[in-house]
């Protein structure tokens, strides 16, 4: 559980989720409550299989929970269809994945612009400038024409971070963004992600196994046996 005095941008109440394995029902989340305010940084930790990614997907509206309710910027999203959710997701959140998920056929610049194209169905001059600004921030302005397969893992993840932020979302969800990187590169990427979110006043939810990265967050949540324990 977590709460701060700032404007809440995401609230999840009593989230429950279970998966079926044959006839057997395996509970993953059992009554998780979660809140995050604008510009806040929250980390989620837990053992493998504790439901961190499931919680992240539910918060992102990519997966439905069995019970409980979720609100984005005070608007309930439970009853929305997948397409309605998709449209709201465009401007509300950005996501960073462990495996980067860059489109291999697009160069670095176009990968960043892709998020804006999906969100706005076109590219304005402001978005172009924003993209170049972010590429400069992640230190890859001079490599904007490079294809993903010519970039290192750290560089790809920095492109993914720029892509998550280009639509100026209220919230970034990062699912183990340093999981595929060595410690040094991981630390650089994590510093970059947290500082950029802080600079742009974007809230950040970080799912990680890395304790030092989790420590960067103002608030920390630990998932254990389907329940959330908060640490301050």
């Amino acid at each position, binding site marked *: 559980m977590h709460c701060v005095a700032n404007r809440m941008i995401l609230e999840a109440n009593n989230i429950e989720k279970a998966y079926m394995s044959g006839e057997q029902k395996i509970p993953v989340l059992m009554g998780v409550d979660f809140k995050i305010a604008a510009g806040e940084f929250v980390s989620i930790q837990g053992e493998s299989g504790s439901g961190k990614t499931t919680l992240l997907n539910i918060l992102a509206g990519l997966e439905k929970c069995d019970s409980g309710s979720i609100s984005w910027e005070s608007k309930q999203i439970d009853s929305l269809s997948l*397409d309605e959710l*998709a449209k709201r997701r465009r401007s509300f959140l*950005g996501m960073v994945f462990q*495996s980067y*998920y860059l489109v291999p056929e*697009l*160069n670095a610049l176009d990968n960043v612009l*892709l998020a804006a194209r*999906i969100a706005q169905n076109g590219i304005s001059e402001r978005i172009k400038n924003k993209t170049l600004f972010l590429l400069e921030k992640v230190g890859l302005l001079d490599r904007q024409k490079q*294809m993903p397969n010519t970039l290192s893992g750290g560089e790809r993840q920095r492109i993914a971070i720029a892509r998550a932020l280009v639509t100026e979302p209220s919230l970034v969800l990062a699912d183990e963004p340093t999981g595929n990187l060595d410690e040094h590169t991981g630390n650089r990427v994590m510093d970059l992600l947290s500082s950029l979110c802080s600079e742009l006043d974007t809230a950040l939810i970080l799912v990680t196994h890395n304790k030092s990265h989790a420590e960067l967050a103002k608030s920390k949540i630990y998932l254990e046996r389907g329940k959330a324990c908060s640490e301050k």
Partner: protein
Amino acid sequence: MPWYVIIALRHLFPEGRWFSLFTFISVIGTTLGVALLHIVIAVFNGFGYEIRGRIAESFGDLRVENRSILYDYEEYSEKLLADDRVKAVAPYAHGMVMAQRGNLPVFPAIQGIDLVQEEEVVPIAKYLQVGALDDLDDDSIFLSSGIASRLGAYVGVEIELYTPLLLEKLKQDEILLPRQVRVAGIFHTGWNDLDENTVLCTLRLMQDLYGLEEGVHGLKVRLHEGEDEMAAAEDFNELFERRVNVFTWMDSNNAFLSVLQFEKRMMFFLLSFIVLVASFSIISPLLIAVVRKTREIGLFASMGATSSQIAACFCLQAVFLGLVGVLSGFGLGAIALRFRDQIITFFATVTGAGDSIHDVYPFSFLPSHVQVSDMLVIGLLALIVSFLAGIIPALKAGKMKPVDALRSE
């Protein structure tokens, strides 16, 4: 440009490469299907075009008849020539005769023509294989190549002509002897109906043989190039207040032309199945692409793409593949048509078929005629089939749950 169009194009034509192997494999089926359809239909058109050309050339654009004898044909002729569309008019009389050489009889159609006027309408001189136009007089005839062959006749031999007038005279207890005529030439038009069974003579001789006096059976009309025969026929029918029947070469050969058209349509119908089969070369790689790009689909969803946009991305790929297939198919078809004679010669040499085309068809080449309307139909058909082929992969992509897509290995 919408993002799904960009992604669809990038999947097919990755940056830095003209073509991906996936695109090549997907396109090749449609290319071959469209090329084959294009070539076959163009050759069919070519045959039809050549045959129609030869019919129109030897028949005249229009004919004027009244199902009886036209005695005032010069009056009609003047009225026709007064029209700007009309280039020339020639009178004719026609009927059946028995032609006999020795004890060998044949029953050809006979046509009496005014040579000077006829030359303006039908290029008789061009058709003459043996003999000269000037050799035709009231005591001689031109034989079609088929009749000459059956009678074993050649220029200079004498032939007896028996006409229905002989029977009429017999009824009146009069005996009219068969007319002895000389073969002055042998012609070949390339139009089978004429070449197999026709005799040409002067109009004067025909009027004698049939007892027409100064009458004729009709007028052949040649229009200036590019004039619409159907419209002209309609106008002249109104002008002559239906006292005579003005009809086009198409009206007269309607059954034959319908068969040509039917053959073309059947060939189109049968060959369109090739395009249908070719669509499988789009479906299979696209289905594989959907599986290959599963996590990318999850990524698009996580960025706010709707299921219909994701479906459109894959469906568009099928349409783009179809478009490339259509263009390359037409290109390949055009190359094959350009070098068709060399290709035919090559195959004839390899298979030992020799000049079999020349034996069967009255052409010394493989005709081809490309019609834009046919190309539009072929292109549209291939695009529709490609679009339909893209629906299954597109639905599969669109229905994918984002979270399952992201989790896929």
